[in-house]
């Protein structure tokens, strides 16, 4: 039986040291969907992104994550990536001495994909995302500006062509041009290759281009509210306090946001 195509997070609880950071996250991202996770600082947004890719230092105490039926949590990060997950980092790491092309060629070889054409693909995507092609020959992220690094993350995503992408504050520190370029490329990928997107952001500006199907508000390690794009607009006007009320320890039921359903369902269904 063919497994259902969905990135499914169920009851995910995560500890860092003694601190409980995530207290039961449920999310489903289907191909072509864009889900935005918003929330105040310290709400656990970045933890969610990192734990999905299996970064060291996070302890999953409960819950499951499956990608098209494959259980991810027991896999090494590189196996998660090979299963079709991509993580764009808030602060992309500089990797001295390793070229972008060499990195992507190794990634392709390890995943049994064709290495031929990576250069071509990089050049095409660099043009599309507006990254100076001369930067392609630099070691990964070394001496790139903040905006260039983010464009570079989007570039890698486009070349790797994952099934699902987690974008961790890819808009932070980005000028408007870069923001639009990156967001547009991600949005195009949802149409062109059916990419499912989980985008973590502080700002609704990114969402104006990305047009999320769903917006989730994360606070104190739980999703307190879910809704459509208008939720992001409300957050912009009212702030987190306004939307969530004083009750940051609110019960699991979502705040009534005036949309037909507050629980996550597939809008394409």
């Amino acid at each position, binding site marked *: 039986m063919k497994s259902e195509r969905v990135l499914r997070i169920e009851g995910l609880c995560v500890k860092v040291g003694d601190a409980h950071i995530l207290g039961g996250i449920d999310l489903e991202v289907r191909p072509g969907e864009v889900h935005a996770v918003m929330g105040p600082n310290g709400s656990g947004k970045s933890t969610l992104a990192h734990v999905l890719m299996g970064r060291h230092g996070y302890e999953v105490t409960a819950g499951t994550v499956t990608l098209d039926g494959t259980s991810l949590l027991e896999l090494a990060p*590189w196996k998660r*990536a090979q299963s079709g997950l991509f993580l764009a*980092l808030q602060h992309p790491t500089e990797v001295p*001495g390793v070229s972008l092309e060499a990195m992507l060629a190794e990634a392709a070889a*390890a995943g049994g994909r064709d290495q031929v054409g990576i250069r071509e693909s990089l050049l095409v995507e660099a043009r599309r995302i507006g990254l100076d092609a001369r930067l392609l020959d630099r070691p990964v992220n070394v001496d790139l500006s903040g905006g260039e690094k983010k464009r570079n993350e989007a570039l890698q995503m486009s070349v*790797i062509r994952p099934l699902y992408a987690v974008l961790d504050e890819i808009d932070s520190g980005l000028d408007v041009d870069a923001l639009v370029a990156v967001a547009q490329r991600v949005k195009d990928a949802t149409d062109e290759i059916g990419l499912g997107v989980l985008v973590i952001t502080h700002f609704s500006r990114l969402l104006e281009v990305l047009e999320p199907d769903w917006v989730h508000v994360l606070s104190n390690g739980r999703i307190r509210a879910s809704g459509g794009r208008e939720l992001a607009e409300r957050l912009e006007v009212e702030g987190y306090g306004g939307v969530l009320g004083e009750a940051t320890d609110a019960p699991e039921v979502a705040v009534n946001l005036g949309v037909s359903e507050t629980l996550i369902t597939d809008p394409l269904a």
Partner: protein
Amino acid sequence: MPNAFNSSVSAALPGPEWLTDLRREAAEGIGDVVLPSADEEVWRYSRISELDLDRYVPLTKQVSPLGPVPISDAVDRNVVTLVLRNGWLETSSISAEAAELGVTVGRIGDLEDGATYFPSVLENPVDLFDHMNAAFTPEPIVIVIPDGVCLREPILIFLHTDADSAAVFPRLLMRCGSGSQATIVEHHSSSDVVSVVAPVLEAQVGNDARLSHALVQDLGSEVRQFAHQVFHVGQSAVLEAFVAGLGGCYSRTRTDCRLVGRGGEARLTAAYHGEGSQTHDFRTFQEHAAPDTTSELLFKGALDDASRSVYSGLISVEPEAVRTRAYQTNRNIKLSPDAWAHSVPNLEIETDDVICSHASTVSPVDEEQLFYLESRGIPTAIAERLLVEGFFEDVLARAPTEPVALALRATLVGRLVRRLHNSRTETPK
């Protein structure tokens, strides 16, 4: 001192009388010189206590070859190619172009003015190995680049050891005339022998001259090496000295770089990789003896298995060396929990108005970088290999010739791939 290292052995070596006298003098003095001890700062962490000189004898004559000297393919475009076996000159060839330009290469004993070249810039032996080299070096080799001569292709020197249980003492004496330019690549190799090699290089870089030098140490796994290289850098001259540490059981390279002329510059680089129970030991001296001199040192190594490295370096700035700029950086990657790297930078500054810096690090492969590569779908072991290759990229870019850089890159990649393969076969998943 073991009996084998005596003046009658020294006296049996070939050469003109003046050379025999110099050697005898050194040999007679050896009795007073003690084996260094790890208590001395310059020998700290050195494994010197493991050296049993009774196991080795100095050679009085060349032994018959065990096999061909391994000579890399890069030989065809060199102006000079020298092969020394066990310290004896085996073959030498000099291009017509270099001969025409007046480049001199040969045994010191064959030169009319040989006595004027020896000793050169190593005026006083600093330790027992210098003493032994002076007493037992069979055929010091002289290389002279005349004033103003620029050699486009490198001088290649193969120092090969295939005598077993031997103490081997090659010696190279270089003089780069004013305004000359040359590149020298020394390859140190051995067959599968248990021997000790104590080579000495003395190099004088004349005013406005430029010397690029590389020592590629790829000795067999039972060979101990105690190399000493001394450079004097003249006014407005530039020295680039590069060391690659790959082989040997214990391999020590002491580099004394003395900036004797105003505005002289030196760039010192090393790349080393340890595996098994190897030790790579580097001692460097950046001596600023003239104003406006610059020295910049970058030594980088990766240590696998139970291998060790030692780096200890001293920047010294003498009172007259105002406006000195001196930098010293040593970085080490530990690839195994059993590997060790000691890094001891030191400064000794006797004047104001200088810019000096030193930095050293010893750490495993960077976790952030590893996670980043893994998050792109690269398996952990391959990601580590890429990172270690990347770690060496800047030092390999400083190799004096492209063939040296390529050969080193290939050797390192070969070792890292082998490691990857071993880790796969050991822990099948």
